[in-house]
């Protein structure tokens, strides 16, 4: 077990090294990074100061070490636009992103789980077919387009919901639905297949032999076990949602970390862009690690697999 944990933590660290190295290399590939790091309209002296600060005249490896050292000290620099430390900005926006992700997750589970169960109960029926079409559409309609269509329908034609911004509970409905849409399809697919697997198992046969009504078999016996993989995926997806919400947040002007990232790009605010990608990557690597370890605790077979 100890070896397994060490191994997985090692992989996670390696992921972070690859992430930081890629960012480092790309920033330098495209020319002089001091141009990116300096504020637009800065003087020659400012540029030279940044260049000395980054150690651009020193060997690449030394530069990389300096870069990593800065990251480890959580020193992400200051935003050009807001003139405050980037980390503060990010943490300020994070609760908004989390709220959006939680509501989006609720949408995706409320849609995905029941439809997945119905599809599994009536395999190859009209319901199952409808479910398949829904899953395909979910995977084929880009979330930002879903968002734009909703604005068109609910804000412009019906005038029921605010088209952008935040503040009231009504503001969160459309972005959350647009974000949850894609995940609803994924959750539906997984619920269906996991339910089918559980329904084929011995203890369900026994429950049926006992003469339990089908609703009870499904709701009481199959439901709980079928839900385990779905909830695991939902846990991973929650973190993923925070990080893929960039486009949806942009469409609805939702003040989350995705919007911050986009503003960073739009305003050429490089420290914000770089920090966003680093933190987002770290978050995802951490969640993958947590899931791996959790699985190893639950299922001993994984521990011994090399």
């Amino acid at each position, binding site marked *: 077990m100890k070896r397994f944990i060490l191994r997985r933590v090692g992989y*996670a660290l390696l992921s972070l090294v690859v992430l930081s190295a890629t960012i480092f290399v790309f920033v330098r590939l495209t020319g002089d990074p001091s141009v990116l790091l300096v504020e637009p309209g800065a003087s020659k002296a400012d540029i030279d100061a940044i260049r000395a600060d980054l150690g651009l005249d020193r060997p690449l490896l030394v530069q990389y070490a300096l870069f990593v050292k800065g990251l480890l000290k959580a020193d992400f620099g200051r935003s050009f636009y807001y003139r405050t430390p980037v980390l503060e900005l990010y943490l300020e926006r994070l609760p908004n992103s989390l709220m959006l992700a939680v509501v989006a997750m609720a949408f995706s589970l409320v849609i995905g789980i029941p439809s997945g169960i119905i599809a599994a109960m009536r395999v190859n029926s009209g319901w199952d077919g409808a479910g398949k079409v829904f899953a395909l559409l979910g995977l084929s309609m*880009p979330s930002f387009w879903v968002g734009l269509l909703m604005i*068109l329908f609910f804000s412009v034609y019906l005038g029921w919901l605010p*088209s952008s911004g935040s503040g009231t509970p009504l503001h969160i409905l459309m972005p959350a639905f647009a974000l949850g849409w894609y995940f609803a399809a994924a959750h539906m697919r997984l619920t269906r297949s996991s339910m089918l697997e559980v329904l084929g198992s011995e203890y369900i046969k026994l429950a049926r032999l006992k003469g339990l009504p089908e609703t009870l078999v499904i709701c009481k016996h199959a439901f709980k076990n079928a839900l385990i993989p779905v909830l695991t995926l939902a846990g991973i997806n929650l973190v993923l949602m925070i990080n893929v919400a*960039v486009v949806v947040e*942009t469409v609805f002007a939702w003040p989350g970390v995705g919007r911050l990232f986009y503003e960073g*790009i739009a305003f050429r605010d490089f420290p914000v862009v770089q920090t*966003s*990608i680093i933190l987002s990557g770290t978050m995802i690597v951490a969640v993958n690690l947590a899931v791996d370890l959790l699985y190893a605790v639950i299922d001993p077979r994984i521990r011994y697999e090399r």
Partner: protein
Amino acid sequence: MNGSRAAALTVAWRLASFRSRLEGLPAFPIVILGTLALLAIFADFIAPHDPQVGLLGERFRPPAWQAGGSTAHLLGTDHVGRDVLSRLIFGARISMTVGFTAVIFAGVVGTTLGILAGYLGGWVDQVIMRVTDAWLALPALTFAIFLAAIVGPSASNIVIIMALVYWTRYARVVRGEVLSLKERDYVRLAIVAGCSKRTIMKRHILPNVVNSSIVLATLMLGVVIVTEAALSFLGVGVPPPQPAWGLMLADGKKGLMAGYWWLTVLPGLCIMLMVLSANLLGDWLRVKLDPQLRQL
């Protein structure tokens, strides 16, 4: 003489087996993708107007069937008076080119690395797979946006970025296949016959993993097209005034609150149809070409 006859027979046999493989080909995705491909190739002849130049006097014209629309602009015009239909047609060219080249590019890189890792094993395998795992752990869309923002918007940069972000999925699958392939008797025979590692990988392994790569590539096509649209929508993808569908959606936002629905609905519909077709075709190919991959 004999040789060429044998070759002709092989070709005939291959054609026959190819034809039998095409049985049950789903019509919907083929029709959609075929139409889009034709539009993309012959865009210059089909499109009624220049996609990049508009008349400011013709701004926000609705589609022909709505009040105020005219047959000169069948699907209306956008915020600078460019013809939407023409832009959609030329947009097909951009989506198709970016989608296919990115998928092929990623496929070549990923398949090559997957074969090398799987066949050579040892430290080569370790290095390649560790990098693959590390890469897979990163958020693809955010990473693509980041790279695009740094290297600057252009269609060719997008292709390179997509290849960089998505090659890992091929490497994973292909390596797994190679691991089982290299234990097969014909590979052992080839080793005994004195083939070099290079020859074995090229002549004996590669043809057997190509199917999986093609299936993956088809499924990835949808992902790549959505990513490209998202990048263009955010302004870090294909640069304006080129008529990329994602870019059209971004422009369409300007007329959204005024209810100019065609600028939002139509480009998205094109993206959806293309992605849907790619997914349907990929699912069909997966079952048809590679029964082993069904469990994936």
